[in-house]
Structure formats: C-alpha cells, structure tokens
C-alpha cells in the first residue's frame, strides 16, 4: 500500500515554429485605411497560377481546341475556352451594406438567417477585367462560395452567360514529408478540444473536471495513465469562455462604468484554473474563438496572457492565433475555431460540414468567404488564408457534431480532417494519432446511462 507507485513521464514532441505561415496571421500594424480589394487582388494573383496549372493539366490535352483566355472580357461567343477567376455569389439574402442603410431609415429589421441560399442565386466569375455569369448543370449541383479561385471550361452562349462544362480548383497543396515511423514505443497523440463554454448555460463543471483529470493523467488506472502520457499536446480550438447574455433592462437607470451585476469574472477565473491544471502537465495551444476575448475580425489574434494570470507562467502554455498553423513532431496542423466553416455553411444548401471542410482543402483556401461575409482584416500585401501547403491534420472547432475524414490528394497527400464538437454540449474531445493520423473520440459523462 505504501510503496511509491510507478511514475510515467509524459512523452515529448518537438515543435517548430512554422515561420511565415504562422507569422502571416499576426496583424502587426492595424491599418484600416486600405480597401478590401487588395485582398481579393492578392488572392487572385497568388492562386491563379496554381489553378491555371491544374486547368491546363486537366483540359489542355482533353480538347485541342480549348484555350486559355487571359481576360474574362475577351471570351468569344461559341468558342470553347477556359477561364480562371474568383467566384462571386449573387445572393439576395446575403447581408448587404445597402440593406443596412435602408434599415437606418426604415425600422424593418431582417432576422438573422441561418442560410443565405435562395433559388434566385447566381454565380459569377470575376477577374481584374470583368465578370461573367456562369450557368450549367455543374453550377447548380455544386457548392460554391464567394472568394474561391476557380477555373471553368465552357463557352459563352447567346445571352452572354458562360455555359460551364467542367470546373477545376487549385487542389490540395504540397505536403511536408511525414517522417514518423513505427517505433517500439507507442504512438503519440494530440488532443483536440473545442468549445469549453465556461460560463455558458450548459456548462458542466464536473465534466470539465473530468477532462482536466484525464488530460493530466490523474484519472484512470495505471494502464490508462500510461496511455495518457502519450498525449503530447492539447489544442483548444476556441469558445472557451462564454460571455453571459445580458438582457437589456430598460427600467434600470443607465449607470456609468460597468454594471457589476451583469459583468462576471468567474468564467475567466475558472478557465484560468483549468488551464493551469492542464498546463502543469502538458503543452497547450489556446486559440481564440467567436466568444473569446479576442479580435472580432479574422484572423483572430492570440488571447492576451494577461487574462490568464496563473497560467501564463507556465512554459507549456501558448496563446496562438485563429486560424493556427502548428507543427508537432514534423506533423503539420492547421486549426480553426469554426467561424470559417460556419460562414461557408450559410452559402450552401448542404448540411454536411465535413464536406465543406474537405472542400476548403480542395480550394486550397481556408476562408474564401472572407472578406465578403466573414469579417476580416484588410490585408494589403498578402492573403494569409491560402493554404500554401497541405496540413497533415486539419481541425475545425465548435461544430455541431464530431466527424472525421481522411482526404487524399493527387500527389499522395493525406490530410485528416476533424470536425470538433463543442465540449459544453457534447463533452467530447478528439485524439489524433500523430503517426497514423487515425482519430478517435473521448467523451465524458456524469449522467446515469439509462
């Protein structure tokens, strides 16, 4: 009974700073004087060669008559040609700045719609010279969002619309070599958590305790604790704190300064305690989410460590941007807190979020709807959302349910796509095996089974 129990040392993994990839997300000088057009221009400039090479590869041999038309306006009627440009979705229900102005004059407020789709939507292809409307079976059946750089093969019809026969995207980017070999030691895992929702209505404190005990290796028998020691990193993908809903009470007189009865610090403190527990044992990367105290525009800047006074002293705590490029043991990860997919969800009829995430990999762009409907910083010289390389693990947080898929690319790239559910509602996290890229869930429950 009194013998010192065997201790296990947590496995370590090398991390490397991905340099430019991660740097791109950090907004250094916040200058809002520029237009968003620069962002679109950069996107087109950077992606066009990629799409073009894919298009040529696909179509140049197919039909000897098809040729690439440099400018969209130069399209000739009746000729089969292919164009490369940015998609623009004309949607009646999309939030429009002109609607906002009319709202100022007329009090009719449009309710927030879950989807902008409508039967009258149309798809345009734009480049620097002009735009052309796309029609065809391929257009009505596929999902498109504004901002994707795409190549289309077809011809112009009498109406001036471009009838599309085939489409192509940039495809999955090149991927770093996956260097992990099978060794005698057991595989390492990373834990992906999202949507802790501390302070929200469905926050369950005991589940959070179980999670921290699981991640720190306190819970479970020796076997489980040994396997827990294989978790080398934890990524928290957004929405850790929920700001309490303030109901505007018109009868109360307005007080200057913050109203103490509605502002609570408890969620941040609970989160700080939780993080401190976990950080004392394992490396944690914290990403900001929609509800977290971070910037409202994408890419969200790291949560300031001043909010987490006891956690920030740990060398294992890292506050990172959203989206986030990371690298663990040469395995590249790309993570987002969900805003990108949530926005794409509004554009398409499909409910399959996993499919949308997989599509973003094919488009080689993680947030095409920025800046159209997804608030974004007006970058002038770069588009940081382009996925210049294909990550090994691509996770999106705060989705409705857990889903995962292994997407393979033309050159043998393998990307594990993981949709993480919100922990507050499902008490589920995901573990991804770094070597095999296999993924499974761990869920916690305190309610009786029956």
């Amino acid at each position: 009974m009194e013998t010192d129990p065997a201790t296990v040392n947590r496995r370590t993994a090398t991390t490397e700073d991905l340099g430019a990839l991660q740097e791109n997300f950090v907004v250094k000088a916040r200058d809002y004087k520029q237009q968003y057009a620069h962002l679109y221009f950069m996107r087109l400039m950077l992606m066009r060669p990629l799409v073009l090479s894919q298009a040529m590869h696909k179509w140049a041999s197919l039909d000897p008559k098809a040729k690439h038309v440099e400018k969209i306006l130069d399209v000739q009627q009746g000729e089969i040609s292919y164009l490369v440009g940015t998609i623009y979705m004309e949607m009646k229900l999309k939030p429009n700045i002109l609607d906002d102005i009319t709202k100022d004059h007329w009090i009719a407020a449009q309710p927030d719609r879950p989807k902008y789709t409508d039967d009258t939507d149309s798809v345009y292809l734009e480049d620097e010279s002009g735009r052309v409307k796309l029609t065809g079976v391929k257009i009505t059946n596929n999902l498109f969002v504004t901002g994707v750089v795409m190549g289309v093969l077809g011809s112009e019809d009498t109406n001036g619309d471009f009838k599309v026969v085939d489409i192509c995207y940039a495809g999955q980017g090149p991927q770093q070599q996956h260097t992990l070999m099978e060794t005698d030691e057991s595989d390492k895992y990373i834990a992906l958590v999202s949507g802790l929702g501390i302070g929200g209505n469905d926050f369950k404190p005991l589940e959070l305790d179980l999670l921290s005990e699981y991640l720190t290796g306190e819970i479970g028998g020796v076997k489980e604790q040994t396997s827990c020691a294989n978790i080398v990193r934890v990524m928290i993908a957004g929405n850790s704190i929920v700001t309490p809903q303030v109901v505007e009470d018109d009868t109360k007189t307005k007080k200057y300064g913050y109203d103490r009865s509605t502002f609570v610090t408890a969620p941040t403190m609970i989160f700080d305690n939780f993080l401190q527990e976990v950080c004392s044992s394992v490396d944690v990367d914290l990403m900001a989410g929609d509800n977290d105290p971070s910037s409202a525009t994408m890419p969200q800047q790291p949560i300031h460590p001043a909010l987490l006074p006891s956690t920030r002293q740990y060398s294992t705590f890292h506050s990172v941007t959203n989206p986030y490029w990371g690298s663990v043991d040469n395995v590249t990860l790309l993570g987002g807190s969900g805003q990108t997919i949530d926005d794409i969800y509004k554009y398409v009829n499909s409910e399959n979020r996993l499919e949308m995430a997989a599509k973003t990999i094919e488009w080689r762009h993680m947030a095409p709807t920025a800046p159209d409907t997804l608030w974004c910083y007006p970058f002038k010289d770069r588009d940081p959302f382009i996925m210049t390389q294909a990550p090994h693990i691509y996770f999106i947080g705060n989705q409705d349910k857990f889903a995962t898929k292994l997407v393979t690319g033309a050159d043998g790239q393998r990307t594990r796509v993981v949709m993480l559910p919100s922990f507050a509602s499902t008490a589920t996290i995901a573990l991804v095996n770094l070597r095999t890229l296999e993924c499974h869930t761990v869920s916690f429950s305190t309610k009786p089974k029956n």
Partner: protein
Amino acid sequence: MEHQAMELLTTRVEDEKQNVTYKWLSRSLGISVNTAKELMQVYLTTVGKNKAHGTYYLARQDPATGNQHLSLVSQEELKTAQKDASVVGYHIYSLEPSPLKDLAILSAINSEATQLQKGKDINLYRVVRNHHVVISASNYRPTPATSSSSAFAAKPKAGAAQSAPGLSGAKPGLNSASSAPAAAASSTSSTTTTNDTSKTTTSKSAAPAAKGSMMSFFGKASGAGATKAASAPTPAKPAAKTSSTLNFKPAASAQQKRKADLMTGAVADDMSSPRATRSNEESEEDEVDSEEERDRRLALSSRLDQDQGDIVEKSQNKSASGNHSPVDVESIKKKQRSARLLAVDDDDDLDADTARAVTTGRRGGDDDDGESVEVMSKEARAALNKEKEAQRLALENMMLMDDTTTMAALEDEDSAMIDVEALDPVPPVADHERTTVTETTDALGTITRRRRGVRAVTKRKTSRNERGYMVTEDIVVMEPFSEDEIIEAPAPAPARIEKPVSDAVSSKGNKSESGGPKKKAGGNQSLLNFFSKK
C-alpha cells in the same frame, strides 16, 4: 498513513457528511492519486461499509472505432456495468455519505482540492510527470509569432533557474509585476539593464532601473548572507548599481509621488518569491498588486539606495573577509532596519539572510511570526520591530500627505520637477542626511519645495531583557522625513538672473543641501530662499 487516511475519511464522510473525491484526498494527505484511490477503496470495503456510498469512474472503449467513453457511475450500477465487455477500467472516484442525485457538486470538492495544492509541487500527486514544464513568474512570453508585434519583450524561460536565488527570485517577481500592467507613463530615462539575462523596453526603464537598484540591494544582502547566494551576481552588482542608480533617480522621484498605501508590503512579496519561485500563488499576488507595488518599490528603493550604498558595501566587505565581529554595530543595525522595511510581511527569509550577515553569535528568541530565526537577540528584535512600526507609519503618513500635490504635479507639464540631488552622483557622506529635493512650481510661480530623505534621529527604546529586566537604550534610528516649504514667487527679473546662479549653487552637491535641512529646523524659510534664489 493508512490509519491516518481512514480516520480522515471517517471524519469527513461520516461525521461531517461531506463528499470526498480521490483528488481531494491526495491533496489533503500529500499522496499520489493512485494511492488515494486505493485507500478509498479500502475504506469503502472495510470501515465505511454501509456507511458511505461510492461513485466510480468507468472507462469503456469501443473496439471498432477506438472511441472511449468515460463516465461516472454509482456503486450500484457498477456491478451491472462491469459486465459490459467494452469496459477497460474503473476505479473509485468519490465517497459520499449517501447516494447523490446530481454529481455536479463533486466539482466543488475538486475546486477545494485545487486550493489545497497551491504552493506544492504538483508531481507529489501526479503519476504522469512532465519534466519540461518551467514555471516562472517572469515567464510572460508571448508566442513567437506575436513577439514582434507585442510591446513586451520576451523574457527568457530560465528565470527560475538562475544561480542566485536571492537575485533572480526577487527579479521575476518584479519583472512580472512590471510587465503585466501597462507601461509606466512617467518613465524617462533609457534602460540600463542590470542583469544581462533580462531585456526590457525603454518604456519600462523606470521599473528595470528600479529593479536594478533593488536587485543590487538584495544581491548584496543575500550575498552578504554568504551562505545562500552565489557570488556570481554580486560582482555584477556594484558596477550595475551605480549606473542604474543614476538613471533611476529622476524616474524615482516621479514614482515616489504616486500614492501607495504600504510601500513595504509590496516588497515583501518580492522577498517571498525567492522562496517560492515555483509557487504560483505568491507570484500571482505579485501581479495582482503590480501597479502599486512597483510604485512602492521605486519609492522605497530610491530612499534605500541612498542609505544602502556604503552600509551594504561595508557588510559585504565584512562577510567577505570572514570577520563577523560586531565592529560596526550601528551600520549593521541600519542595514537590518532597512531590510526590515522591505520585509514587513515575510520577515522569515530576510531575517535569516540579514541575521546571518551579522552572526554575532547570539542566539535569540523567536521571530514575531513564531518561526525560529537564529541570530537576533531579543532586545535587538524588539527594538527593530518598534522602529519598523514607526517607519511604516512615517512612510504611510508621508505618502498620504504627498498625494494631493503630487497628482497635480504629475499632470502639470510645466512643473519643474527637478530632482536636484538625483542628478549628481551621491557622495558617500555619512548617511545621516540623504535627501531628495523636489520642487514644484505652480501657475503663480509659487515654489513648493519638498525635502524628503532619511535622517538620523536618536530615540529611546525600552524593552525587556531576557532576564525580565527593563532595559532602556538610546538608539540612533534612520527615519524618513518630508518637509515642505513654500517660497513665494520671486520677481521675474531677479529670478532670471539668479536662476543660473542658483543652479550652480544647487548643483554643488549633497553637502550644501544637507546642511540646509538641519539649519532650517526652525522653519527658516528665509535661509532656504537664499539658496534657491541665488
């Protein structure tokens, strides 16, 4: 251990009717979590049978997908649940006096457990250890990607692992405190970092410079302690100290003017950090009090700097030479007093340090806090405590007094906050009169001269001897003072002419001014007018 655990469990679950989780038990007894689980299981089957109810943690794994499902079940359900083939493990999670309806209240016990573990090494309880975790109060280190955008410079992780505990321990406390809040607005001088392992931006110059002087004090104090600190920082200290003191002064005078309720209290936190570099709690306190703390420290250190110059050097020389005889009792006592100024709340550590420095060989009674400190004799301790109290009150009053004028002075751009003394190198005169003079000129041209400093005052102390006899002695105490005088606006022409002369005069150095306060004891404003106008 087992018996103790059983007793604890009985008390808590049966008598107090409280719930117990394995985490709480491990923190209470200081044992590993696995041992705690075993103990609880034993309790449930032997002593607490039928008196307590157990909740179990159950782990199931789906063999097909690999998904794990961890849940908490009551002991009744455990039997049936165990029959499930997918169960991979279970153990007791908590003990309750009666079955719980809602398990969420166990979370409160877990929070209590977290409270219990504060200040202790977490590896005491954990089975899975991570040796790469470095906890340091100075570990405010933005992520690499943001380091260029952040205004705060990255601090090295090895803050906790430095060689001199006295030096580095206090330093992280200060570093974190200063880096946490927004940069001080009033800092002026460029940074002279005294420790090559830390970098700070110019906006924090006041704080690091202050730290430099503070560090030098601590470095020497603990270096003089000779038993603890490594000699490494001390050679760096003298050189750094002088340069930092110079740069520090103008900012210090500005900082002095900020309101602080108890200057000494703040520094006590810093003193605690050498002892508890790994303890988060005390570092937390540092950061919580950071703004005021920094002010206090700066204010205090400016004063101390003036005193400590030769006191510390003397004591250092003494310890270096190994001569511990109380040759210079007075300076030693002064040093101790100043040390006490800094270590109000946590006397233990610093007492031990400074006491060791003295090592008069006298073994005295106990500390005010009841902990044993080797060296102080009873009457010396009592005397020192009284002085400390007096000083504390004096400082407090001084701070309160200064408040109204200081705020105005801060805001007023035109006010000439000339810290005359500070600009000159402080000559090592007898540390009786070490004053700083600040002048504020308001709109009408009225100069309010405030003289602050520490001066020697003879006081009578009565105390009880070891044998119970009353002993009275005269002790020279260094007491901070602050004296004001208001000089009416001089006529412009003479003022202009006399200004360069007065600058020349006032820049003569400490001696001329130090003669001033003495003479003007009787409120001889005319005499001071002489100095200021000419």
